[in-house]
């Protein structure tokens, strides 16, 4: 058995029995072409690895829990992938939420209403604010803060409609009816609902796409 075979075998065994196995210490034990070969073989092994069985305790202790929370909010929410994407973008930008909010309020000229901007931004991250109501002005300002284009943010916020049901034998969840659109998805309007007075910040976050 070559060194590469032995290290690959050790890695596979550790991965199969462990919660999470970092391959880099194994790579560190090889050099040159052997190291390249080992990396490629581990890569191919991981690419073919089956889904891990669910372990509630390990899940809670894993970064996967935060990822799942964002994905769940996205799938259940009203603004596409924003709940998963926006926290990741501000992490990449090394900004805390309060810093994003402060910069966003400043760029929107709404420093005096920072709390209101914070509330709306919170709703964006939580999947509660429909994408269609958020103006281009907000997305352009937010994009400059987190390093994305307004267009890319817009597209990410548009929730894909559930795909067509599978027709093969493995499809087991018959969908018998379509319910109403996601919460508030249809509620975005260019005008304030009756009895509610909107100011400029409301219009920016709920009034629709046209730039202010």
């Amino acid at each position, binding site marked *: *058995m*070559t060194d590469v*075979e032995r290290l690959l075998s050790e890695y*596979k065994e550790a*991965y199969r029995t462990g*919660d*999470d*196995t*970092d*391959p*880099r210490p194994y790579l560190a034990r090889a050099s040159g072409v052997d190291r*390249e*070969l080992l*990396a*490629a*073989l581990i*890569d*191919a*092994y*991981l*690419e*073919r690895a*089956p*889904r*891990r*069985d*669910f372990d509630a305790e*390990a*899940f809670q202790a*894993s*970064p*996967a829990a935060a*990822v*799942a929370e*964002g*994905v769940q909010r*996205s*799938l*259940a929410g009203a603004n*596409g*992938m924003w709940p*998963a994407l926006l926290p*990741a973008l501000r*992490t990449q930008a090394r900004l805390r939420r309060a810093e994003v909010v402060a910069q966003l309020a400043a760029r929107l000229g709404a420093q005096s209403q920072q709390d209101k901007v914070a509330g709306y931004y919170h709703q964006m991250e939580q999947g509660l604010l429909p994408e269609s109501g958020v103006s281009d002005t907000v997305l352009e300002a937010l994009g400059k803060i987190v390093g994305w284009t307004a267009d890319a943010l817009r597209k990410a916020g548009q929730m*894909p*409609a*559930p*795909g*067509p049901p*599978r027709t093969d034998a*493995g*499809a*087991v*969840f*018959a*969908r*018998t*009816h379509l*319910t109403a659109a*996601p919460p508030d998805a249809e509620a975005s309007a260019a005008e304030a609902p009756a009895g509610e007075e909107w100011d400029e910040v409301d219009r920016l976050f709920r009034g629709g796409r046209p730039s202010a």
Partner: protein
Amino acid sequence: MPDLSCQTGPRAPTFISLAEFRELPEQRLNELSDEQLIDYLRAAREAGRHAAMKPAVAVLVFGYHDTLRNRARLKLPDHDVEDVVAETIASAVASAFGGSSIGEFRSWAHTILSRRIADYHDARSRSLNTTALPSEHQGEDEVWGQEPGVPFEGDAQHARDCVRLAYEELENDRHQRVIDLYVFGPHSAAQTAELVGDGMSEANVHQISSRYQKRVNELLDEGSDTSGER
């Protein structure tokens, strides 16, 4: 749990007849295939049962988080691994949910990860072309940062290509199955010989595996010889 003795095989289908959406316990969700979980998520959303989506998403995300993270660790600096993996999983689930993914969820998620890694290194190489490395500013306290800590993605891509090419060069389907089960799979040489059957011995498995890895090495060497041209 269904028998998962073959690593690359699909999970056994569960035969549940649901006229309307019915919430499943975590244990049952764990038994569903990826595609069935996606169907379950769609059905839960359409039924307005958002809370029921949470455990299904957890099963799917937990199931692939570690494999994606460890692949990313092979090619990305540590501080960027989690972000890239999180974005990969979110994109993979969203596109599968929307029906725009291609093929099985598992391979789709890995395809997205490979693209994100390539994009990451593209962006980085563009940046490195115009930005001096921190070590070029030694002694200047205000200039700090991290040096590249992983091999250039081009090298990793070349190695991946060699692994694939050597596999495709195997003309005998049984030899490919040996590589699937023994090199890329979780099985020992003895288990592999038994699963392939038809006269395959443990010694044959070692021989086929060694020849395969030798061929990958040759291809890697050929690449190294012409690395100046790459």
